[in-house]
C-alpha cells in the first residue's frame, strides 16, 4: 500500500476516533462505581438502578416522550403539506415568503426561536388568556422547529419522484386528492418515516427552545440533564446516555437494513418485470 493510501486510512481512522471516543467514554463510565471522578474504580450497575428511583428524571422522560411524539406527528403532517405545496405549486402569491418562513428555523439560532416564540405566547396569554406555558407551548415550538426539517426531507423525496406517475393517474381520471392518497403517499412513505424519526429525535434532544417555552412543572429530560451537566458530572446522566445510544444504534442499524432490503426487492421486481416484458 502506498504512503498516500496509508495517510488516507490514517486520517479516516483519526476522524472516526474523534467522533466515537466521547460516545464510548459515556457508555464506559456509566458502569463506573466512582461517583464524581472520571477515574475507573470498578464495575457497577448501580447508576441504572438509581435512574429508576430518580423521580425527576423519570417524569422528565415521560414528558419528553409525550412531547416528541406529538411534535413529530404534527411536524410531519405540516411538513408534508408544505413540501407538497413547494413541489406542486410553482407559482402562487407569496411563494418566496412561504419558502423563507419554512426554512427560517433551520438557520436561526435556537435562542432566537425560543425567545421570539415565548414573547408571542406571553402576549397571547395576556390578550386571550391562552396558551399557558407548558405542554401546549412546548408542543407548538417543537412542531415549528421539526416542520422545517420534515419539509426538507419530504421535499427532496417528492422532487426525486417522477412527475409522470401523478400525470398518468390524472389522465386515468383520478381526482387530485386521489392522486395524492393513491400515488404520491405510497411513494413517499419511507421519507415520511425518516422525517418522523428525525423530528422525534430533535424534539427529544432540544434544550434551548424547551427552556424558553416550558413552564413550572414541565421540565423535559434535556432540561434536567442540562442543569445537572452544568453543575458537574453525574453518573446517572451517563446511564441515560448509554441507554439512548443502545436504542438509537439498534434502531438505525435495523432501519438501514430494512431500507437496503426493500431496495434490493424493488430492483429485483423491476428486473423481473423487464424480463417478463422481453419474453412476451
Amino acid at each position, binding site marked *: 500500500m502506498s504512503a*498516500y493510501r496509508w495517510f*488516507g*486510512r490514517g*486520517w*479516516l481512522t483519526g476522524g*472516526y476516533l*474523534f*467522533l*466515537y*471516543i*466521547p*460516545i464510548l*467514554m*459515556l457508555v464506559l*463510565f456509566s458502569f463506573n462505581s466512582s461517583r464524581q*471522578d*472520571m*477515574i475507573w474504580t470498578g464495575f457497577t450497575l448501580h447508576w441504572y438502578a438509581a435512574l429508576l428511583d430518580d423521580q425527576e428524571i423519570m417524569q422528565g422522560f415521560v414528558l419528553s416522550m409525550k412531547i416528541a411524539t406529538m411534535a413529530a406527528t404534527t411536524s410531519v403532517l*405540516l411538513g408534508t*403539506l*408544505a413540501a*407538497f*405545496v413547494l413541489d406542486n*405549486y410553482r407559482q*402562487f402569491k407569496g411563494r418566496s415568503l*412561504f419558502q423563507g*418562513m*419554512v426554512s427560517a*428555523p433551520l*438557520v*436561526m*439560532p435556537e*435562542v*432566537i426561536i425560543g*425567545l*421570539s*416564540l415565548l*414573547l*408571542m405566547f406571553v*402576549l397571547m396569554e*395576556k390578550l386571550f388568556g391562552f396558551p399557558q406555558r407548558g405542554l401546549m407551548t412546548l408542543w407548538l415550538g417543537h412542531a*415549528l422547529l421539526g416542520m422545517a426539517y420534515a419539509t426538507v426531507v419530504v421535499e427532496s423525496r417528492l422532487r426525486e419522484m417522477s412527475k409522470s406517475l401523478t400525470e398518468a393517474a390524472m389522465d386515468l381520471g383520478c381526482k*387530485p386528492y386521489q392522486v395524492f392518497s393513491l400515488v404520491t403517499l405510497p411513494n413517499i412513505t419511507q421519507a415520511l418515516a425518516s422525517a418522523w424519526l428525525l423530528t422525534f*429525535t430533535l424534539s*427529544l*434532544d432540544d*434544550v*434551548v427552545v424547551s427552556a424558553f417555552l416550558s413552564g413550572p412543572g414541565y421540565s423535559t429530560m*434535556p432540561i434536567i*440533564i*442540562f442543569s445537572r*451537566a*452544568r453543575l458537574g458530572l453525574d453518573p446517572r*446522566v451517563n446511564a*441515560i*446516555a448509554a441507554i*439512548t445510544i443502545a436504542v*438509537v444504534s439498534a434502531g*438505525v442499524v435495523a432501519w*438501514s437494513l430494512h431500507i437496503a432490503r426493500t431496495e434490493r426487492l424493488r430492483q429485483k421486481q423491476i428486473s423481473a418485470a423487464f424480463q417478463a416484458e422481453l419474453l412476451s
Partner: protein
Amino acid sequence: MEKYFKNVLTLRSLSGRNFVIGIPYLWLMVFALVPFFIVLKLSMSEMEVGNAFGTLLSAEDGVVLLKIKVSNYLFILEDKLYVLTYLSSIKYAAITTACCLFIGYPFAYFMAREKAAIRTTLMMLVMLPFWTSFLLRIYAWKGILATNGVLNQLLLGAGIIDVPLHMMHTPFSLMIGMVYTYLPFMILPLYTNLSKMDIRFIEAAADLGSTPWQTFWRITVPLSKSGIIAGAMLVFIPCVGEYVIPELLGGPETLMIGHVLWDEFFTNNDWPMASAVTILVILLILIPIGIFNKYQSEQRVGQA
C-alpha cells in the same frame, strides 16, 4: 384590489388548492412571522415596569402616534461589552469553521475515494452520532477534558506531562466541543460534492503531467468550491448563535452572543434589550446567507 377581495370572498377561495396552501401558510404566519414582528416591535420600545410590551402605538387626541426608540440599538453599538461579544461570537464561529474544513476536507476526500461498497457504511458512521443526543455528547467532553479527566490521566500515565493540564472552561475546550459537534455538517456536503466529481478531470490533469499535489490544488479544490461554501455555511451559521456548548464547555473568557441574550432575558428581565440583541443577531446571520444565495444563483446562471 376590489377584484382580489371578491375572489377571496367567493367560494373559489375554498378550492382544494387554496386550502392546501392555506394551512401551512397560516401556521407559518402565526408561528414564524408574527413572533419576528413582535421582537422587532419590542426592540424599539423601552422597558416599562408592569407593561413588558411597552407602547409603540398610542392614540393621543385622536392622532395615532408611532413611537420608535432606537436607544436600545444605540446602547448596544456604543457598549464595548456587546460589540466585543458579537466579535468574539464571530471569531469562535470562524475558527470552528476553519478547523472543521481542515479536518473535514481530507476526511470527505478519502471517504469519496474509497470503494463504493463501503462508502455507504462510512457515511452512515458519520451520521450515526447525529442521532444520539447532542447534549449527552457535549457532556461527554466534560469528563474527558476535566482536570482529573480521562485525557489528563492518559497524559500523566504516559509521562508526557507532570501536572494535569487545565483544559476545561477555556477557549480550547469550547473549540473542541464546537468542532466535534459540527464536523459532520462539514463532511456531509463535501462528501456529496467530492463523490460526484468527474474523475476524468483528474485523470486528464495527470496525463498532462501535473503532480498529484498540483492536481489536488488546481483541479479538485476549485471543483469542490460549492461544497466548501455549503459546508462552511452549515457550520458557521449555527455556531454564531450557539448556546449549549459555550455554557457547558466554555469559560469566563469565551463570551458568546447566545449567552448574553439568555442573560438579558432571564436574569436582567430586560425584554426590549434582549429583542434588540436578537434583531442584530438575525442581521448578522442574514449577511452570510445573502452572500451564499447570491453565489448559488450565479452558479445556476453560469451552468445554464
